[in-house]
Structure formats: structure tokens, C-alpha cells
């Protein structure tokens, strides 16, 4: 079994992946979002149907946009705006709604599923490179010492997993989305989130260590 990579090699690799992912896909790297899309795969069907009808009839899309604008600002405000533009003899701000293409590109949920499966494959390859591949039923002796084995182990993993799932959705991101993609751009919400999850993990781990 080979040792883990030096820290700076892993750091460079993660940075290249985070930046490369953004430039290749025009989306910021965020694994918790892939989970959202895969778990909510049925929503894609509804979106597909809606966007298909807009592609077929762009006029319908314009009408929907206008209806939403009126709902937001009120009929009077919209009429006033349109009249003011008319008086100035300007071209409308949006000449012709570039209907379907104008919306942000949506990655299909199956792509997100492929992404999650690729992470599993990455784990297989990584373990093979280190010569450490093999079926293991627990998470090692340290984990067993802290949380127990058997039924206690299952409860720990399930409750912990549920906290990870629920927590990342509530927080709007995880280590990749808030941590890497967010902190590196100094996004305030991401800085707060990252400090919170590292802080909570440190306090919880120290408390468990102290208690056992």
C-alpha cells in the first residue's frame, strides 16, 4: 500500500479540476447539486415538456415572459414603460426574445448521474493505483472505536449520511460548491458556510473523542 500524495500535488490537481470544470462546462463545480438533480430526476421530465413547447412556439414563450413581467410589476407599470420607450423612438430593449437559447443551459439529470458514477470509478482507479483495493465492511478501527460496530455502525452511517444530504441542500452547497468554487471567489455565503461546516465537524469530532 502506497502512501497518499503530498498535499501540494492533491491541491494542484483539485484546483485544475475546479477551474477546468468551470471552463469546460460553463457551470461551477458542485457535487451536492448533482445529487439534487439525480434525486429529483422526475422534475426533468416536466421541464423537458415545458421547454419543448416553447421551442415549438417561441411566441408562447414571449407571452409567458410578458405575463410574468405584468404579474411582477403590474399592468400600469409595464404599459408606462412600453410607452416611454415608444416616445423616445428607441428600439425595444429586447428586440426579439431569443426564446429557448436565452435561458441558461440545463444539464440533463442523466449527465449528473454519469458524474456521480464517474466519482465511484475514480475511487476504484485510485485504490488500484495505491494497491489498496478490496472489500471492506467497516470504516476502519478508528471509526469503530468512536462509533461502534454492527447496528451502531449502520445507524451512524445512515444518520450521518442523512445529515450530509439534508444539510448540503439546506446550505445550498458542499465542500466543492461552497468550499472550492465559492471560497476561492470570496463569496460571502460560501465563506460563512465553509467556516460553519469545518467548525461543526471540528467541535463534533473533539466532543466524540472526549466522550469515548
Amino acid at each position, binding site marked *: 500500500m502506497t502512501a497518499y500524495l503530498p498535499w501540494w500535488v492533491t491541491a494542484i490537481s483539485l484546483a485544475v479540476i475546479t477551474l477546468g470544470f468551470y471552463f469546460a462546462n460553463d457551470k461551477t463545480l458542485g457535487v451536492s447539486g448533482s445529487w439534487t438533480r439525480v*434525486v429529483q430526476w422526475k422534475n426533468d421530465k416536466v421541464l423537458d415538456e415545458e421547454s419543448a413547447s416553447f421551442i415549438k412556439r417561441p411566441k408562447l414563450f414571449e407571452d409567458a415572459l410578458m405575463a410574468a413581467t405584468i404579474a411582477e410589476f403590474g399592468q400600469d407599470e409595464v404599459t408606462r414603460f412600453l410607452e416611454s420607450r415608444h416616445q423616445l423612438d428607441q428600439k425595444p430593449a429586447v428586440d426579439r426574445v431569443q426564446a429557448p437559447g436565452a435561458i441558461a443551459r440545463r444539464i440533463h439529470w442523466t449527465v449528473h448521474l454519469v458524474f456521480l458514477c464517474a466519482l465511484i470509478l475514480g475511487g476504484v482507479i485510485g485504490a488500484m493505483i495505491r494497491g489498496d483495493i478490496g472489500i471492506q465492511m467497516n470504516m476502519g478501527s478508528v471509526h469503530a472505536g468512536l462509533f461502534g460496530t454492527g447496528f451502531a455502525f449502520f445507524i451512524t452511517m445512515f444518520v450521518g449520511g442523512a445529515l450530509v444530504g439534508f444539510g448540503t441542500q439546506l446550505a445550498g452547497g458542499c465542500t466543492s460548491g461552497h468550499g472550492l468554487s465559492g471560497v476561492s471567489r470570496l463569496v460571502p455565503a460560501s465563506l460563512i458556510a465553509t467556516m460553519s461546516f469545518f467548525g461543526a465537524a471540528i467541535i463534533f469530532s473533539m466532543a466524540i473523542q472526549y466522550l469515548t
Partner: protein
Amino acid sequence: MQNSTIQDYFFYTVFGVAMGVTLSLGGFADFEQVNSLFLLQDITLLLVFAGAVSLCMLGFVTLCRKRKIAKKTYNGGTIPGSIMFGIGWAMTGACPSIALVQLGEGKLGALVTIFGIVTGVWVYRTIAAPSFQLDTGVCGE
């Protein structure tokens, strides 16, 4: 709205595998490594994180000056959600990507974590989100 192309499948596969291999080789899928980070006994992984963030910052500043990248907004869910995530990470040694990497390495306990993640995401999106009314968004969209 464009549908996903073969290019999306290709890039998501390449970056997924690369990320999985990196996390595995870097020791992120090893509970002992993660636990000793949280106990502040071995800060190797913290150095990795700080190094990666610094390099990304350099990259985003030099390469993305004119691009407008969507920023996450702070809301009432940011702190409680992150605290829940941090505790879950300390219990399982897994964040949303690492549970999958652990499974790939042959650690079958990660299957329970993955089942937990799916349950947690489902409960939030279908039961909790409609009543919380927070604009938490979908990460990476």
C-alpha cells in the same frame, strides 16, 4: 433551452473520474485522515484545501475578469445546513463526493451513507423545502 449534448457526458465523466482519483490518492476517503484533520492532529488535508482554494482564486482572478459567475446568496439555511453537514461529515467521513469515492475503493459501509444522502436530499426537497421557503437553489446551476 438546449438539451445536454454528448460533450456534457464526456466532460462530466472526465472531471468526475479525475476528481475521484484525486480524492482517493489524496487521502480524503480515509476516515482516519479526515478524523485527524477534524481533531487538528494532522492538517495535511487542510493544507490541500487551502492550497486548492488559493490556486483557484488565482485562476478565477486572472482568467475570469470579464465573466459574471453566479454567486450563492446567504439565507437562513446557510448556517444550520452547514452545521448539519459538518456533523454528518464527521460521523461518516464523507461529503457528497467522498461517499462515492469510498464505495469505489471497496468500502461498503459507504452504501449506507449514500442511502442516507439520498434520503436526506429527498426529505429536504419534497417535505422541508416547501415549508421553509428559502431560496437555497441547486448547487452548480
